[in-house]
Each structure stands twice: as C-alpha cells, then as structure tokens.
C-alpha cells in the first residue's frame, strides 16, 4: 500500500453563508506526481487544499490519502502524511527561533529530543538554512521565511507536500531558488499558484478549477496550449509560452 496517493471523490463544499466553493471535484494523484491546481481568484483552490489536510470537512464526497479515508479518527495520521505549507509564512512561523519553529512539528509527534534534533538539522540543511537556525523568524526576508516554513513541514517527514502559492511575494531570485528547491523534492507534490511559469517548470500535470468545479485535468503543456479553455477560466498562457515581446517568435 502506498501512502503517497491523494484522491478526491465527488468532493463538494458549501460554506455556512451558502457560498458553493467546490462542486463534485474528483481526481487521483499518484506516488511522486507533481500537480498544479490553478484557477482564477475564488475558484476554490484554497478550499480544496484545506480539505486535503482535514481543516475543512466536505459537505459531500470524500478525500482519501493513501488508501485511508479522511475521518476524525484518521486525522492525526493523515496530518503526518500530508505536509501543508501556508501561503503566508508569517501564519506558520510563530516560535521564537527558526530552530524551535522547525522543531514544533516533530515535538508534537512526540519524538525523542535526539530525533527531533536530527530532523531539524536535516530539514534546515535541505533548505540551506542550518546557519540561520538561531534567528527569530520575523527577522528573515520573504524568501527566507518561505524556506523556513517549508523546513518546518519537511521536518515532519511527510509523504505528500501541499503548498498554497509557494512563489507569491518573492523577488525573482528568491523565486528561482525556491523553484529549484521544490524541483528536487521527490514527494508527491500539489501546488496552487497563479505563477503559471512556475507550474510549467515544476508540474507535468495541471488541474484547472472554475467556480469550484474541475474544468480540465491533464498534461500541463496541453492545458496551456488550449487558449479557449484558459480564457474561459480567466487564465492565460505562461510568459514562457507566449510570443517573444521583442521579435514576436514563439517557443516550441
């Protein structure tokens, strides 16, 4: 049995105020896949992510992680399997030092302190950050905060990484660095993003949401070639696939 599967079956979510955020969403993401969930603002991307980690309960349908349905009883195990990185790292970094923050997850798992230390060391090395361990998170730059937040999730040794808008708010260099880092991971990865060039770099597969429903699910290249679909979903081709603004020639 693989823990790395993520499956949604007929997933729907209606918020208390009556807003329909997800309608009959189904997909199956298998071991080691890297998948982007894209869509306009309010298309339901963040609501979908909140379901993968059990923060929201489906109004109907179900989420399965590995072969386990997500229920109240399986929640702790599932939160160990699915690592969720929030859009705003400030929401995630709340301990006084980077080290303590990265140690927060492993300590909650009840690991012995030697193992916690090993995990923290490994996670911080992974994001190239061990030398900054004693820093308070609020003294870090935007890109560094993002990395610290990712390290905090990596330290829990998840099988599946779920990230909400990983590149938002980063300068071009920090963005490029982060894309490089994310490309090295071998986890099953799910990203939401408006950064379609990042999607092109990192995700062979893309799911397009519109008003809470899946409009397309397939190879990223095919989806970005479908201009009619993109414009209907208030999206556009990534810059890398648009004609060169200087000479007008196209890639591909």
């Amino acid at each position, binding site marked *: 049995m693989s823990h790395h599967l993520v499956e949604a079956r007929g997933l729907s979510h209606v918020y208390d105020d009556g807003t329909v955020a997800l309608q009959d969403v189904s997909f199956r993401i298998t071991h080691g896949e890297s998948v982007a969930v894209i869509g306009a603002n309010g298309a339901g991307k963040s609501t979908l992510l909140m379901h993968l980690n059990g*923060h929201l309960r489906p109004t109907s349908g179900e989420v399965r992680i590995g072969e386990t349905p997500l229920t109240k009883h399986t929640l702790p195990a599932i*939160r160990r399997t699915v690592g969720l990185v929030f859009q*705003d790292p400030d929401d995630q970094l709340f301990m*006084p030092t980077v080290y303590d923050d990265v140690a927060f997850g492993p300590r*909650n*798992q009840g690991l012995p302190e030697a193992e916690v230390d090993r995990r923290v060391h490994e996670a911080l090395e992974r994001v190239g950050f061990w030398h900054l361990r004693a820093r308070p998170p609020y003294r870090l730059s935007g890109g560094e905060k993002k990395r610290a937040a990712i390290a905090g*999730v990596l330290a829990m040794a998840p099988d599946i990484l779920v990230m909400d808008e990983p590149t938002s708010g980063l300068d071009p260099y920090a963005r490029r660095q982060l894309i490089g880092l994310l490309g090295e991971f071998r986890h099953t990865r799910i990203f939401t993003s408006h950064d379609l060039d990042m999607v092109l770099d990192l995700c062979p597969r893309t799911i397009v949401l519109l008003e809470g429903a899946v409009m397309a699910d397939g190879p990223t290249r095919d989806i970005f070639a479908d201009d009619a679909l993109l414009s209907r979903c208030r999206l556009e081709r990534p810059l890398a696939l648009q004609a060169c603004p200087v000479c007008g020639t196209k890639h591909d």
Partner: protein
Amino acid sequence: MTPVAGLLDFRRLDLLAAGDSALHRLDPRAKVIVTLVFIVCTMSFDRYAVASLIPFFVFPIAVITAARLPIAFLLHKVALVLPVALLIGLPNPWFDREVMLQLGALQISGGWISLLSIMLRSLLAAAAAIALVAVTGFPAICGALERMGMPRPLAVQLLFLYRYMTVLGEEAVRMTVAREQRGGGRPLSIRLYGALVGRLLLRTWDRAERIYLAMCARGFTGDFRGGPPSRLGRLEIAYVAGWCGLLLLLRTQDVTQWLGAAALGVLR
C-alpha cells in the same frame, strides 16, 4: 513606534530568552518558583511598608546582571506598569489623611506613604516578572506551570494569549500606518476609533485562526512541547533554596534597620 507596538514589543523578550547564561539554562520551574515566592513576599507586607521593600530590588537586579540582560530595555518595559499603579494608588492620599511622618514643617499622610508602597510593589513585581520572561521565555514558563500542576488547558490558553498579543500588536501597527498615511494629521475621532478597533479585532481573529490551522497542520493537539526536557538537579535546588532563604529573611527580619544600625555603628 506606536504606544501599542511598544507595549506589545514582546519579541525582544523572546530573543533575550534564547540567550545562553547559567540562569538561562536552569530548569524553568526553579525560576518560576523563586519569582512566585518573591511576589508573595513583597505583596504580604502591610500597606505602609516602604523601607522594608527596598532590599527586595536585589533579586531583579541580580537576575538581570547575572543573565547579562539589557537593563535600559527592561526598565522601559517595567516603567509601563507605573501609570497603572499610580491610578490604583492615587485615591489613597484623599482617603487616608492621618499624618504619619513629620519632616520639619512637612507633614506626610498615610495615604501618600501607601501610594508609594503600591508603586514600589508594582515595580518589584513587574521587574521580577519581566526578568523571568527574559531569562526563561514565555513558552517555557507555561510548560513549567503545567509541570507544576496547572491544568493543561489553562497553560495552553496562556500561551495563546501571549502569541496572539503579538499578532494583535502587529495588526495594530499596520492599521496605524495605513491610517496615518491618509489621515492628513487630523486627530482620531471617536467614530473612526470605534471602526478601527472593530476592524482590528476581526483581522486579528482571522489571523489567529490561520495560525491555529498552521499549528494543527503540524500536529498540534493541545499539548505544548517546548524545548528539550530539563530536570530539577542540584543547581536548581540550590537556586531555589538560596533565594527563598534570602527572601524569607528579608521578609521576616527588618534588614533595613540592621543595615542602618550597622552604618551608624561604623560612623560612631
């Protein structure tokens, strides 16, 4: 920095707590116990006590020096309690007019003396508490209280209170900046003030919820586990015994009088 931000500038305290001195390394429980004993001792004097309170300053001063804490920053934090203490003690000189001290022609009533006593005690308690946070860190204090028998939900509540105070402070700073930007230097009207405070509450609420979600996502279940576990060793026992001994001595014996008598003896 706005007053709100100044009041809520706890991050620097967190940073200080990450320092490394013999005091920092002590088990948090030892430090919490001594601080509690200290506060009980100073609070249990009678309402006109002034001279006998002075020697108690030795405790916060010793902690601050031993842990090499920045004294100016801490004084600034401690001074924040003064207006509150003043407000509490201010009615005393009106109600308690009995003359207790005669300095030449100047008659000092009991009310003024008890006001001074209240201010001294507030300073002592604030200094001890802030020094405790600065050498221990708030999460570790909550952990210590829990290990000493405080119900877990209460300890976790305390911790959240602390964490959300900084969140509130940060939101307040952002809103103040945004208002000043377009405020044209005009004073804040009551109506606007109400709108701002309401907005602040809602924003903080949202943010607090996101932080809580992020904690849950990393396996938080209501158990707070901070730092490597420490234990009460010989050092801790010596620390508690030493300070409690000294504090009880200061509380039960009139040390100021001894010192005065000794000084007079030397002069003679």
